[in-house]
């Protein structure tokens, strides 16, 4: 059987279920005759999209920038901090508990503070996305860097390898799968962070903003069909993010790591 056929078989049921769900939803709308501002049907949403494609794209681009910005910054700073934690057990023991603690703070609770300090707008939203992405990256990467087998460390010690050689030739490649786990969790968080951030700090001009701001605005205007379109766009962005991280992961680990090569026949 070809790969394509296998994929079709594997995804057939979820695919069928999707159309059944959409069909039932549309049927419910037609029979029940609910007002469109309360529950729009799939067709109401779909027929709205072409006319508001410009607005959707504008919001998408804005939110994308914030989510990507926060994600990339947290990736760079998170991996950097984890490297420091791997070199110095002292620093790690002092700071890692705070990383865990930081994770338990609801970001929504401190977003007013961030807006107070950074002002409303894209930068504040970026910072909120960044703060949501950072802890899972630090936690996963640190775990990957320090969970190296003692024998492998001894192997490097036999060649009198320095701490930095050990870090870049052993710990970092060993941590690659964990780095991608952290990035994948963060990629979901980035979109959520940007969306939620925008509902607080979304826009500097009324009516124009990212997906989160637009959703709030649509809710106030009872443009429920457009709200659904915005939700759909946000989901697509999340998927797209996830897809990019997964592709990069596959590319980096394709030769050696079980999580990626497991599907191949031996």
């Amino acid at each position: 059987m070809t790969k394509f056929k296998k994929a079709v078989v594997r995804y057939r049921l979820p695919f069928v279920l999707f159309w059944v769900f959409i069909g039932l939803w549309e049927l419910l709308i037609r029979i029940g005759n609910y007002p469109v501002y309360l529950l729009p049907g799939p067709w109401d949403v779909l027929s709205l999209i072409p006319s508001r494609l410009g607005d959707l794209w504008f919001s998408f681009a804005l939110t994308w920038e914030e989510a990507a910005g926060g994600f990339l910054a947290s990736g760079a700073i998170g991996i950097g901090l984890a490297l420091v934690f791997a070199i110095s057990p002292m620093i790690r023991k002092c700071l890692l508990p705070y990383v865990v603690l930081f994770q338990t703070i609801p970001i929504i609770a401190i977003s007013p503070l961030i807006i107070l300090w950074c002002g409303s707008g894209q930068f504040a939203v970026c910072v909120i996305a960044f703060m949501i992405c950072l802890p899972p990256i630090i936690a996963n990467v640190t775990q990957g860097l320090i969970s190296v087998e003692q024998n492998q460390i001894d192997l490097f010690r036999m060649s009198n390898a320095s701490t930095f050689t050990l870090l870049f030739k052993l710990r970092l490649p060993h941590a690659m799968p964990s780095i991608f786990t952290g990035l994948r969790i963060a990629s979901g968080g980035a979109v959520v962070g940007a969306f939620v951030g925008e509902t607080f700090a979304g826009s500097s001009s009324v009516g124009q903003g990212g997906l989160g701001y637009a959703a709030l605005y649509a809710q106030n205007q009872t443009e429920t069909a457009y709200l659904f379109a915005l939700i759909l766009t946000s989901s697509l962005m999340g998927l797209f993010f996830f897809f990019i991280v997964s592709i990069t992961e596959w590319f980096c680990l394709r030769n050696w790591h079980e999580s990626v090569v497991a599907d191949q026949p031996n």
Partner: protein
Amino acid sequence: MHANATPAEETTSAPKQPAFVTVEGLIKTFPNGLNVLQNVSFRAMAGDFISLIGPSGCGKSTILRLLAGLTEKTSGTIAIEGLTPHNAREITSFVFQEATLLPWRTVEKNVALTLELEGVPRDQRKEKVSALLKLVGLEEFSRLYPRQLSGGMKMRVSIARALASSPRLLLMDEPFGALDEMTRNRLNEELLRLKQQQKWTAFFVTHSVAEAVFLSNRVLIMAARPGRVHREIAIDLPPVRTAETRESPHYLELIGKVSAALHEVHG
């Protein structure tokens, strides 16, 4: 094949030759107070192949780690050509219990690791690695990743990596313990063939009496709690050993002798 291999050629300790490795009154106590090694002394001449065998907890792996400078002694002397283990690392290689390959590196990159860490230039590395892979019969597999290899092949890569830095002291901590008997026997023969060519001195930890007798010219039987050398048995088989050696009566007799000594320790 071993027509000219007479017992006279054996590497038994000649009294005037200075020892290559000297261990005297070695004591190792773990931080929790456990007495791992109590007053261990032995010497190894250049070219010796010494197996350490004994019940678990007798400190045989600890002896290897001490010789490698991977752990610190509590008291006593260890000298490798007059150097401390730490300073002798340049001439020492360690083969670990598992192959301990780096999964993100291909076979050839794994073998090249120690050379890379020692700063050997790339083209020299390449030349040496391909020679070593040929020596262990893996030249066709140089571009594969460890996950694509069998257990025996992984161990071959591990040995090639250890030999890459041209060691004069080879420390092997039960390298073939996880392999099936046929693979283990074949690798034993290959190891001796490599030794014929390269003339290193070896310490070999094992649980297999047959393996110890086949490989070594001396077997140290160790006792546990506290870890100490119980007895030394000289293996006076001809230095060139092949699969047929395993069928010779003298080989079987020596296995009986080592087994009996092990029973004294266990009993």
